[in-house]
C-alpha cells in the first residue's frame, strides 16, 4: 500500500468517526429534549406568558427569546410572517431566556410595559434599536430606557418604574429561566411547535414543523 493511501484512510476514518458521533450525539440530545418536554409539558406555557394571534389556534409556537440576541432579531420578522401566513391556525407564545448580561432588566421592561398593553410595540422597538443598546453581547438597559422615553410618549413612566420593581415580574422571569433550563432552551431563539422541538436549528426547520402540525390539526 502506498503512503498516500494511509493518509487518505486516516482522514476518511476521522471524518467518519466525527460524522457518526455527531449523528448519535444529536439523536440522543433530541430524544432527551423531547422526553423533557413531554415530562414537563406544563413548563411550556405559563399563565403570565405573552401570546400573539388566535388564542384558540390548534398550532402553538413557543419561542424562548432574548431581546439582546441577534438571531432572535433576525427571526422576529420571519416568525411574524409565518403566523400571518397561517392566519388564525397558528399562534405564538413568547418566553424569556435572558442569556446575555443585562438582558434580565430588558425583559423586566417588557413585563412592565405589558401591564400597559404595550408589550409588542416595545419588543419591536427593542429589536429595531438593538444595535444601539446591545453592544458586544451585553445589554445596556439604561441606553434602551433613553430610547424608550424619547420614542414612546404614550407610556406612564412613573407606573413603569414602579411595576419593574414588582416582585411578580421577577418571579415570572425566574419561572421562564427555570422552564427554559428544564426544556433545554440553552440558546436563543429556541422553538417548540405544539411541544415538539426543532430537529435542528433553522428557519426552514421551523417552517416545516409548523406546516406539518397545521396539516395534522386542520
Amino acid at each position, binding site marked *: 500500500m502506498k*503512503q*498516500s493511501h494511509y*493518509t487518505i484512510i*486516516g482522514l476518511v476514518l476521522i471524518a467518519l468517526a*466525527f460524522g457518526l458521533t*455527531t449523528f448519535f450525539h*444529536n439523536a440522543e440530545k433530541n430524544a432527551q429534549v423531547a422526553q423533557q418536554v413531554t415530562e414537563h409539558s406544563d413548563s411550556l406555557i405559563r399563565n403570565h406568558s405573552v401570546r400573539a394571534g388566535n388564542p384558540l389556534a390548534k398550532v402553538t409556537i413557543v419561542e424562548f427569546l432574548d431581546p439582546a440576541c441577534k438571531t432572535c432579531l433576525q427571526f422576529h420578522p420571519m416568525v411574524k410572517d409565518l403566523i400571518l401566513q397561517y392566519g388564525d391556525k397558528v399562534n405564538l407564545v413568547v418566553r424569556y431566556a435572558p442569556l446575555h448580561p443585562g438582558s434580565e432588566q430588558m425583559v423586566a421592561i417588557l413585563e412592565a410595559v405589558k401591564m400597559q398593553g404595550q408589550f409588542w410595540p416595545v419588543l419591536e422597538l427593542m429589536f429595531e434599536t438593538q444595535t444601539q443598546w446591545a453592544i458586544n453581547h451585553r445589554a445596556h438597559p439604561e441606553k434602551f430606557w433613553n430610547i424608550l422615553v424619547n420614542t414612546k410618549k404614550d407610556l406612564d413612566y412613573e407606573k413603569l418604574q414602579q411595576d419593574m420593581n414588582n416582585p411578580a415580574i421577577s418571579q415570572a422571569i425566574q419561572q421562564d429561566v427555570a422552564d427554559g433550563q428544564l426544556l433545554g432552551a*440553552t*440558546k436563543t431563539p429556541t422553538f417548540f411547535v405544539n411541544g415538539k422541538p426543532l430537529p435542528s436549528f433553522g428557519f426552514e426547520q421551523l417552517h416545516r414543523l409548523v406546516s406539518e402540525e397545521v396539516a395534522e390539526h386542520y
Partner: protein
Amino acid sequence: MNTQRSAINPTIQPAINPASWKFIFASWLIATLATAASLFFSEVMDLVPCVLCWYQRIFMFPLAVILLVGLHPLDVRVVRYALPIAVIGLLFTVYHCLLFYGFIPENLQPCSEGVSCADASMELFGFLPIPLLSLVAFISIIILLLKARATAK
C-alpha cells in the same frame, strides 16, 4: 515529479526514510484526531472553549496541516517547523492541567471571565478530562516528532 525537482536542485531533495514517515504520520494522525475532537466538543457538544483551551487549539490545529504537508512528499524537516508549535502547545497544556487539578490556585488563573478553565464540565463522559487528553496528545506528538528526526539522521 520528485526526480524532476531533484534534477533541478538536488539540495532540496527530501530524505526518504519509511521509518520517519511512520513517525510523522502517527503524529499527524494524533494532531488531526485532536483537532476533530476539539471541534466536536465545541461545535457538537456545545462546550464553550475556555481561554487556555483556545491557546491549545491555536497550536494544535496548524499541526494537522503542517504535518500533512510534510508527509506528501516526505520532508523530515517538517519536524523543525512542527516541533516549536507542539512545544508551545505543551506548555499551555501543562499549565492547564496544573490548574485543572488544583496545583495552581484558582485566583491565579487568567480566565476569570467566561468559562472557568478548572470547570468540571471539561470531563468527557464524566471521567476523561479534556486537558489531560490534550496533554497526552501534545506529549505523544513531540515524542513521535523527535523519533522521526532521530531515525532520519
